[in-house]
């Protein structure tokens, strides 16, 4: 039989007491900075899309083509807008029921504001290039729908992963 060793036994028995240090909080802060989550990808997509539109708006402001009192293609646009708005609203309802962060909703709101700006310019600026604005507005809605789709896909994937884990 193994002989008793008081020092060995003492250390073994008091193992937990040797873990007396606390990890400093700044370590997590540094990990958080370095290790970017994959999740933020969609956010950059949204930011990139918004930036693109802002550039487009700037460009349009810069051009200021000749006066065009009536907006050509407005009726067709209204139809397209209605179509997109319905789909976006449906997706938005779905997103709101999911456990996504508030920042997702805030970013979508930023996109909405960009859209409102485009629309305002189209209706109020007599010198606006309507053709350009209308296509920018359509494109904007397509992108927004696209981004929302991506968010839903990600959350879906994650939820199906989670439920399969629960079955284990």
């Amino acid at each position, binding site marked *: 039989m193994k002989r008793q060793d008081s020092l060995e036994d003492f250390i*073994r028995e008091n193992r937990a007491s040797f873990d007396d240090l606390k990890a*400093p909080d700044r370590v997590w802060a540094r990990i958080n900075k370095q*290790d970017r989550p994959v*999740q933020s990808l969609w956010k950059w997509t949204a930011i990139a899309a918004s930036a693109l539109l802002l550039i487009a708006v700037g460009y349009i402001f810069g051009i200021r083509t000749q006066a065009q009192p009536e907006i050509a293609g407005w009726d067709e646009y209204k139809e397209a807008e209605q179509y997109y708005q319905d789909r976006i609203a449906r997706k938005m309802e779905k997103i709101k029921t999911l456990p996504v962060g508030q920042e997702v909703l805030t970013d979508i709101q930023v996109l909405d504001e960009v859209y409102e700006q485009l629309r305002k310019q189209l209706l109020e600026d007599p010198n606006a290039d309507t053709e350009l604005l209308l296509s920018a507005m359509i494109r904007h809605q397509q992108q927004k729908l696209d981004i929302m789709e991506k968010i839903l896909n990600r959350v879906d994937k994650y939820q199906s992963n989670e439920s399969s884990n629960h079955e284990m």
Partner: protein
Amino acid sequence: MYSEAESSLIALCLKGDRQAQYTLYKRYSDAMFNVCHRMLGNEAEAEDVLQESFIDVFRRLDSFRAESSLGAWIKRIVINHCLNVFKKRRIKFEVISESAGNIPAEENEDHEEVVFEVRKVKEGIMKLPDGYRQVLTLYLIEGYDHAEIADILGIQETGSKSQFSRAKAKLRDILKA
């Protein structure tokens, strides 16, 4: 060993969920910080290695298999990172052989009743040379056996055993002083 709660926490971490990663970090960071400190012998390096280790843990989490507990898996990553620091310092792990052949016999160990204090023993451990401290703490505190320590340090099992005996004798000397 590998609970359902832990498996869903891991799934969330794999998705990049910050909150879940923080929960996992919080659960193990104090224990792992102590492991780093014991391995490296100072807090500044322990902090750096803790940081690197957890970034590595989150990156490699998909390769975690429930063969061991999550804590044991993380601990191995932490220890490997500690050993990398020694490699970077270009100090190879060496079996200290100053008193080779003079491994203290069991009889040399004290028979008298000694009252140890955790604080003093800890201080004594921190005074040990790196090679002694590592083997001693891996064996007595981290709970590895000599075969595992040999594997971790890339030495022979007999080397681990004799190094441990010397480390223990050295610690005893320090505590008596």
